[in-house]
């Protein structure tokens, strides 16, 4: 039922046309390059791929003609043009006018509401990412926190784990805690399922495979932290595109899987198939959702399961148009509202010089900050995503980053200069930033 995916009609329509655009782009690339969307591999090729399964990174197929189907900034343009046809904005400016790029009236939390929602991040509660730093003796917080974590794991209590992880996870316990919260078990059926997917990869070649290759080569392979895991990324993403169980998440995703038709049977429903089989067309930067997980799981099928679950719980919301509070539209609006309400001078200044803040922060949020933060900080951030079961923290962090660099940003006079000030986030410590922004700034 459509309304379970997305209650607002205009959002559904927008998502629908966005999907049409993507599919059109994919199909035209396919026609241009005369490559089929899918083909069965000849036996020789299958054998070769099987041998190379652990080092697909060394394969250097010619990817120069492939382009990513879309990049985050293309998606941003679509979101900027979203309008609710039933909403009368009026031409007159008032205090309630939203000066940002997003112009749809969705409800977002303000700081008092965020403080309540994120109460465990408050100044009086211990946090990993702050209270485990070297100046703080571990007896004050860290040791006890680790002990509780071990207890939670021993009891295999998923709900308790989710509550616990709001204060951050000790590095040694993180892999298990995430698995517990995401309800990932190490059942033999799961391993078999993964092997089955692997066989699918060996037997059939999909056009999206080349897109995945290209994406990995453009992003993760050049990343200081993740280049080591390049081969794992192929092993996960190629299987992911063939995993039809992922189709299940479209029941609550505003998006719908793209359909394609067997050659020659265009329009005939009996010959429609979902393409790719999992219904998810990767975009530029998609592989960065998987990369940080490689620091936690080195067994491919476990890594795969964790990623799949993270995707169908959280990541899909970052690239589909919906009114959900954790959807990217709401996150953008939340970010802009926070900035406009609590840092009005900065917001106004940036707007004046043609540097709308969302243009810079959008890519951070779409990637859940992967590739922008140092890995240990990123993992602390993702701890809280799991703990609060919400992506809103991404918007709050984005605003906090702007607040942190406000002094420098006030001095810039162009979008390029603003980008430069915010180009390198690798030294940031996320928890202090969040805490200060939410709990220690005078509002």
């Amino acid at each position, binding site marked *: 039922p459509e309304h379970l995916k997305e209650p607002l009609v205009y959002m559904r329509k927008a998502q629908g046309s966005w999907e049409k655009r993507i599919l059109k782009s994919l199909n035209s690339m396919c026609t241009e390059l005369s490559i089929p969307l899918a083909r069965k591999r000849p036996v020789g090729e299958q054998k070769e791929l099987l041998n190379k399964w*652990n080092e697909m990174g060394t394969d250097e197929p010619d990817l120069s003609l492939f382009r990513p189907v879309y990049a985050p900034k293309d998606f941003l343009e679509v979101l900027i043009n979203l309008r609710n046809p039933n909403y009368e904005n009026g031409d007159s400016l008032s205090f309630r006018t939203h000066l940002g790029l997003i112009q749809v009236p969705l409800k977002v939390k303000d700081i008092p509401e965020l403080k309540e929602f994120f109460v465990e991040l408050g100044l009086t509660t211990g946090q990993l990412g702050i209270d485990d730093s*070297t100046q703080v003796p571990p007896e004050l917080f860290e040791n006890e926190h680790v002990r509780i974590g071990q207890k939670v794991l021993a009891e295999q209590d998923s709900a308790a784990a989710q509550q616990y992880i709001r204060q951050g996870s000790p590095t040694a316990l993180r*892999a298990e805690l995430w698995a517990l919260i995401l309800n990932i078990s190490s059942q033999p059926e799961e391993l078999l399922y993964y092997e089955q997917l692997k066989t699918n990869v060996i037997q059939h070649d999909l056009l999206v495979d080349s897109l995945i290759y290209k994406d990995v080569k453009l992003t993760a392979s050049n990343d200081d932290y993740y*280049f080591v895991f390049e081969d794992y990324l192929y092993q996960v993403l190629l299987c992911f595109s063939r995993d039809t169980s992922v189709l299940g998440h479209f029941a609550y995703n505003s998006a719908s899987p793209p359909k394609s038709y067997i050659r020659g049977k265009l329009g005939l429903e009996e010959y429609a198939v979902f393409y790719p089989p999992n219904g998810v067309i990767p975009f530029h930067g998609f592989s960065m959702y998987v990369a940080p997980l*490689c620091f936690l799981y080195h067994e491919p099928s476990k890594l795969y399961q964790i990623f799949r679950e993270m995707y169908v719980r959280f990541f899909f919301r970052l690239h589909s148009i919906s009114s959900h509070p954790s959807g990217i539209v709401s996150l953008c609006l939340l970010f802009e509202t926070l900035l406009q309400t609590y840092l009005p001078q900065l917001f106004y200044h940036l707007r004046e010089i043609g540097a709308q803040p969302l243009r810079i922060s959008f890519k951070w949020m779409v990637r859940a900050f992967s590739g922008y933060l140092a890995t240990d900080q990123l993992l602390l951030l993702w701890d809280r995503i799991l703990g609060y079961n919400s992506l809103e923290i991404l918007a709050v962090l984005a605003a906090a980053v702007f607040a942190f660099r406000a002094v420098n940003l006030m001095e810039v006079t162009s979008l390029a200069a603003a980008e430069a000030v915010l180009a390198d986030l690798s030294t940031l410590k996320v928890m202090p930033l969040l805490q200060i922004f939410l709990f220690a700034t005078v509002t």
Partner: protein
Amino acid sequence: FYWMSVQTIRNVFSVETGYRLSDDQIVNHFPNHYELTRKDLMVKNIKRYRKELEKEGSPLAEKDENGKYLYLDFVPVTYMLPADYNLFVEEFRKSPSSTWIMKPCGKAQGKGIFLINKLSQIKKWSRDSKTSSFVTQSTKEAYVISLYINNPLLIGGRKFDLRLYVLVSTYRPLRCYMYKLGFCRFCTVKYTPSTSELDNMFVHLTNVAIQKHGEDYNHIHGGKWTVSNLRLYLESTRGKEVTSKLFDEIHWIIVQSLKAVAPVMNNDKHCFECYGYDIIIDDKLKPWLIEVNASPSLTSSTANDRILKYNLINDTLNIAVPNGEIPDCKWNKSPPKEVLGNYEILYDEELAQGDGADRELRSRQGQSQGPKGGRSRDSGRTVLTTW
């Protein structure tokens, strides 16, 4: 102040030139640093050190049921060629399927290194020793042969080694500092112990000088990881205790190697030295000392690298020559904590002795976790090692 190359050092300190350093001149090498930095001498000194400890009955030299040192087994079994050829053959025959690595004593950057798994591959070194035992071998042809660690810890399927920087300001009393920002060097090609790839240096040798000629070499990250990445990865996938133990062991072997050469080092007060330690971790998380470099590469292969090396030199000089003043070699070589920069005190003999010598032995013995691992945390806990 004069930053010298090893060549110049040899000239300055050689008996013939009779060059004397005045009090305000400090140089960046010890005169006989090769006791530590030449592969054969390093092994010789460590073997000698172990035997001495054994003779004294020191608990550090304790051995297990197989005759292996419990705490001092950190260098792979090594022999000098051609001198120890016969001893080597005996050892080789005990495990004929093993692989050994041949390294020329005096070269660097991976030059001249190759792997063997058959005696026939090193016949050259036997013929010489048999037929011409009276001919002095020129040092250039001397090789060491070590048991190859064919089970290195792999990450992402690739072999890597650790490059750590250690600054020594004096050997007696031993005062050394470890640079917190070491790095891992990854091979660009997947590791395989298969014999067909023994010749492929891209699989086995991690030197950047070699790897950068590989097809897949990437200039953005240069195949390098920070030690903190390594730590995060190991803690996340293996657990905190074993990771802390690993890093403690790494610090231990560095200090032991320095202690081993301390008695033979010319502890000239005009000298300090920054070494590049190469360490390999095997898949049982045991660290092995591969070699020590006296002139670690100070060129950079990536942008991050440049920043690291810049800071390294900066911090090194801050410790060696305090306050940017004209150096006086008579100073007591105890820099204040603030100038350490990214260095942490690895071992300070004076301070350690102040705590009582037997604390060192006691704490080393009782543990499998080692002293509080806080020292190796990259965020800068400067807790002195307790041994």
